[in-house]
């Protein structure tokens, strides 16, 4: 179904493809919670150094799909994934694949900021130290915080508790913490939904800078946000991928009526 739509829309993007520019390929991904099918036969590619947004009404399966990309669904009892998620020429759910290694290479930022109850410094160094990082920790902390546009605000108090930061700062710390692992893909699950508009703007600016080095997949409730920041958009409803296309296209001339109704705010 999806393949046809993309062709109809006339974008130079066909499906399914093995594209060197894609870092991750979702092929007929279905996700079940026990017998309940939360994501139905979804296929699309995630492009390197681009921001891909997944939008859709509550309960459409977008967060579920996102969490399946770094195997965080493993922690949900009864969750099961069918289909293939191809990353670095391997199915992320293959028998040989170690989920711990997957999460090291595919980072995640959550809906609510969740810094560790430790110092800012230790929040950043904990992950890299776990897998045997041997470089200079000070440099790592500075680089990660700079990448997350937080360095100037916290450089004088790196050893204070991360819990003393504001919500927006905490979320940027969580981004810095994920970046310190030098992930190939960064997943963001509604990263701004718990933040005020100024912090949100901060994070959006940050994402623009980050896509130079990273591939970002973001789930968002906020359609304006998807339109502002993403390059590609996937629209989901009731577990189905209704449309996947270049963001501009989705928001100006979607090929499916349902998408148009959603992006123009007629439901959802």
């Amino acid at each position, binding site marked *: 179904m999806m393949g046809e739509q993309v062709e109809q829309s006339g974008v130079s993007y066909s499906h399914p493809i093995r594209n060197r520019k894609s870092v991750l390929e979702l092929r007929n991904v279905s996700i079940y919670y026990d017998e309940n099918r939360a994501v139905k036969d979804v296929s699309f590619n995630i492009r390197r150094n681009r921001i891909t947004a997944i939008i859709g009404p509550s309960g459409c399966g977008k967060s579920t799909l996102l969490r399946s990309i*770094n195997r*965080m669904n493993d*922690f949900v*009892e009864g969750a099961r994934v069918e289909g293939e998620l191809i990353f670095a020429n391997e199915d992320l759910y293959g028998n040989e694949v170690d989920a*711990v*290694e*997957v*999460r*090291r*290479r595919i*980072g*995640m930022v*959550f809906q*609510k900021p*969740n*810094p*560790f*109850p430790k110092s800012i410094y230790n929040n950043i160094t*904990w*992950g890299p130290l*776990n*897998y045997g990082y041997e470089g200079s920790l000070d440099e790592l902390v500075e680089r990660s915080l700079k990448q997350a546009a937080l360095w100037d605000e916290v450089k004088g108090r790196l050893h204070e*508790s991360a*819990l003393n930061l504001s919500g927006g700062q905490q979320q940027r710390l*969580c981004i810095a*913490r*994920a970046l310190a*692992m030098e992930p190939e893909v960064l997943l963001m699950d509604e990263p701004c939904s718990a933040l005020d508009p100024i912090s949100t703007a901060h994070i959006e600016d940050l994402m623009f800078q980050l896509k130079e080095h990273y591939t970002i997949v973001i789930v968002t409730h906020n359609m304006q946000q998807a339109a502002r920041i993403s390059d590609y958009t996937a629209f989901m409803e009731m577990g189905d991928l209704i449309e996947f296309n270049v963001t501009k296209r989705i928001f100006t001339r979607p090929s499916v009526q349902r998408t148009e109704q959603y992006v123009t705010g007629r439901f959802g």
Partner: protein
Amino acid sequence: MAFHSTTEHRNLAKRHLKSKVFAAFCGAVTWSSVVLLVVLLYQVSVDGFRWLDWQFIDSFPSRFPERAGIKSALVGTIWLILLVALISIPVGVSAALYLEEFATKGRISKMIEVNIANLAGVPSIVYGILGLAIFVRYFALERSLLSGALTMSLLILPVIIIASREAIKTVPVSIRYAAYSLGATKWQTTWAHVLPASFPGIMTGVILALSRAIGETAPLVMIGALTFVAFLPEGPMDSFTALPIQIYNWVSRPQQEFHELAAAGIIVLLTVLLLMNSTAIYIRNKTEKRLR
């Protein structure tokens, strides 16, 4: 409408009265137990205070009340509690971690859970019999400190496990997810985040459990802790006595002086308990602050 409003008012007054009566009842119950405790403490201090001096603490038991002291029992209790803590804390916390973090939740884990809850309610004398059969006889540990400590550990393990599990449960799942999302293994996540975050709660459980152990007499009597010990235990394999046993022994003698000695022993026991608890609470508060 006037009729309505008066009914309402009457109703309201009644409801207020009910709530006042209930508050008074709860207050009375609380205060009566406090009063009881104060009376008890007062009685004990009046009886025992004049015996309480360095000589009392630094002497072995004797059949002459003036020369009798609590040295061997005090040292035995300290040994016992240290050993119990060494055994029961690692075992209890590990069991709780296993049940909460690692075991697959199913019928078996449910069964274990129910059984642990039941064990917490088993009378201590039963643990004493178990200890006698297993540690003293079967493992031939004799009537040693180690036998006593193992038996006491069995007794308080359910309490430690239950309290630790509750503490581990309260660690927000978002912290675990944060750790996992950074490519941490289960062990790394547990050791670096789950355990420190649940530490204050675990400590509370441990305090309660050890406080219970320090006052228990029945299991020790059962496994045969001695009542007259004129030497100090030098290692975990030595025979011993403990404060509650010494107190029990003095109380059961006919002479008034020994009853007063028992009261003095109770003061010492309460002091040890208080010291232990306040240290634990201090440690707990300190770590709690560090985490915030």
